[in-house]
């Protein structure tokens, strides 16, 4: 029999951790205008920081959270400043910018694999398919990662609402999202906005990855698997909204895990292997369906609803 409580907890933690990535992905997508293909691999770097801190330095697991934030945030700045910014300056077409994030992903994946091999051969620590669940602490009688990820996600969401709508920098950020050229004309430092958004989102990806091995079995390929969830959630929620992105992340995460478990109870085997092996197909299918059926995502639906509601009234457009 399936223990549904465990499955729901698993789906919840999985979705919560991916929500960090989706939020960050959407933010950089909006400011820099390109989807960062390497975002999942940023998280994978966080995973290996946790492994390093816990197993090699033998320190407390949660020390890896701030460390992962700093390291991956700086990496995000490096990627933007070292790769995307020069290409943009040279006037590279959109397609080359897209390939550049793929190239970054290829390099980072290789670096993670080298690190994993190094940990395995030199430090003699299991570095592929490792699980650090027993290293986790318990908070208020719940697994630490469950509480910590929830609290961190809520605080990041509040932080973003505050940053975007109540600070001058947030206004500059929103201006950059609307129209980078116009924003630059009225004195917004677009490059600074981009640098800071890559810093924050990189750090969030690092934190998310750092918490992943506390509940899930991980290896270097995880980054390239969860990026599909991030894409799917980002498009289903609408790339323009950070909060709807969280909602759609939960929708996709729960569909993936609960759907796979449910399907395995009905049809245990497909084509000689267990049904659970086909799990990555669910976010892939949801991505394709979302793009073809609802290309503007939930945000588009909401905008349509708002337009309908405002019809007939005098609307003063913000100019």
């Amino acid at each position: 029999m399936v223990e549904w409580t465990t499955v729901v907890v698993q789906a919840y933690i999985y979705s919560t951790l991916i929500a960090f990535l989706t939020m960050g992905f959407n933010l950089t997508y909006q400011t820099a205008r390109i989807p960062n293909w390497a975002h999942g691999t940023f998280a994978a770097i966080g995973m290996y920081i946790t492994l390093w801190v816990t197993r090699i330095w033998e320190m407390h697991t949660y020390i890896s959270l701030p460390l992962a934030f700093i390291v991956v945030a700086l990496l995000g700045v490096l990627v933007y400043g070292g790769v995307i910014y020069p290409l943009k300056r040279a006037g590279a077409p959109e397609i080359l910018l897209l390939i550049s994030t793929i190239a970054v992903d290829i390099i980072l994946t290789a670096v993670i694999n080298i690190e994993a091999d190094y940990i395995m051969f030199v430090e003699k620590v299991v570095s592929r398919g490792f699980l650090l669940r027993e290293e986790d602490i318990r908070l208020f009688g719940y697994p630490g990662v469950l509480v910590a990820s929830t609290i961190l996600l809520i605080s990041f969401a509040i932080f973003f609402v505050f940053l975007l709508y109540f600070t001058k920098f947030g206004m500059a950020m929103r201006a950059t999202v609307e129209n980078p050229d116009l924003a630059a004309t009225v004195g917004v430092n677009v490059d600074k906005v981009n640098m800071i958004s890559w810093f924050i989102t990189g750090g969030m990806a690092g934190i998310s990855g750092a918490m992943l091995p506390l509940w899930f079995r991980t290896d270097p390929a995880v980054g390239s698997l969860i990026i599909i969830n991030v894409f799917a959630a980002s498009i289903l929620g609408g790339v323009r909204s950070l909060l709807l992105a969280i909602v759609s992340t939960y929708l996709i995460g729960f569909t993936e895990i609960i759907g796979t478990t449910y399907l395995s109870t009905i049809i245990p085997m497909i084509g000689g292997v267990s049904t659970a092996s086909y799990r990555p197909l669910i976010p892939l299918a949801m991505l394709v369906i979302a793009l073809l059926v609802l290309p503007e995502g939930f945000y588009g639906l909401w905008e349509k609803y708002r337009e309908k509601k405002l019809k007939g009234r005098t609307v003063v457009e913000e100019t």
Partner: protein
Amino acid sequence: MSLLDFILQIPLEGVLGFLVDLMFFLAVYIIVTTALNLQYGYTGIPNFGLAFGVAIGAYMTGYVPGRLAYMLYYEQIAEKVGPMCPTLEYVRCNIFIRNEINAILAKEPLISIGLLVLTLFIAVLAGGILGYIASYPAVRLRVDFLMMVLIAIAEGVRIIGMNYEPLAGGTLGVSVPNLMAWTGLPRTVQSAIMVLGITAVVIYYSFHLFRSPYGRVLKAVRESEDAALAVGINVNRVKIEAMVVGSAIAAVAGSIYSLYLGNVVPTSYTRYDWTFWPWLMLLLGGRGSELGAVAGTAGIITIRRIISVYKHGVQPLFPFDVVWLERIALGVAFLVIMMFKPYGLFPEKPFRLKGIHEKPVRLKEAEKG
């Protein structure tokens, strides 16, 4: 030791084997880059799902000829395989069944040729159908969304192939019967004839396509969809055709790759080997340029094959698998090309048409007269 001594020391068979291997990889990858050149270089569709065409061609090659031959000679084979593998399932008893099929087909040239043609036909058909499915998003979505969807489709095809055992044997793969055994020639010569023959046909067809008026239609769509539409080109139809034909060509590559190796291992149809490397080859050579696509492929394949030979010698120096260094080189090469040579080493030449781009000599003469 003089250079001559050094050269003489290299075993001749090793060099020959290396060259045959190199020729084969060159042939397969030139087909793949030509397919990509058709889709991205000419039509401007950034197909990041190139691997799905190659994979479906390979899966079909694993699925069709072996099973058909098994069905044709079921009783003959079952009699011999039965004692060794009582279930007689095609995938589970694959090795035994393949050996029996090879023994039988070595005496049946007509059936072998028929199976070869049928296999290629089905691979092309499957590639075309998958390309048609993938063209649905290709005509509707923006570049960034399209990239995600095409990568997603390729990953989906790989996941299905890796898991669904009846298709191509799951993670272990399935072996392909030798359809050229009837010639009685050594194995390498057989494969060389088959691979080079098919490659020549594909290359001839696609270069002919590129230089025809249709090739200029493709370029028109790439340069400006609106302008192409204005002169009466059905842009969506052209894009669909490019996806279908390109995926079908990629499927041929997958098919001959598995026919040569004699097996299909679904785990090897990764996006690195069959999407990103061909992309690098095309970008290095120059998109939309036939010479560039071939030169880029030749350069990178030669380097990669040489690396694969010397890899094991270097391995003990590093505390990690040296494969990852090659991956880093792949990523860095992408960035370097994009920053310094965005149009590749052999950029596409502007198209010149007789009578339009020629100097208007006659007009001047007419004016004088």
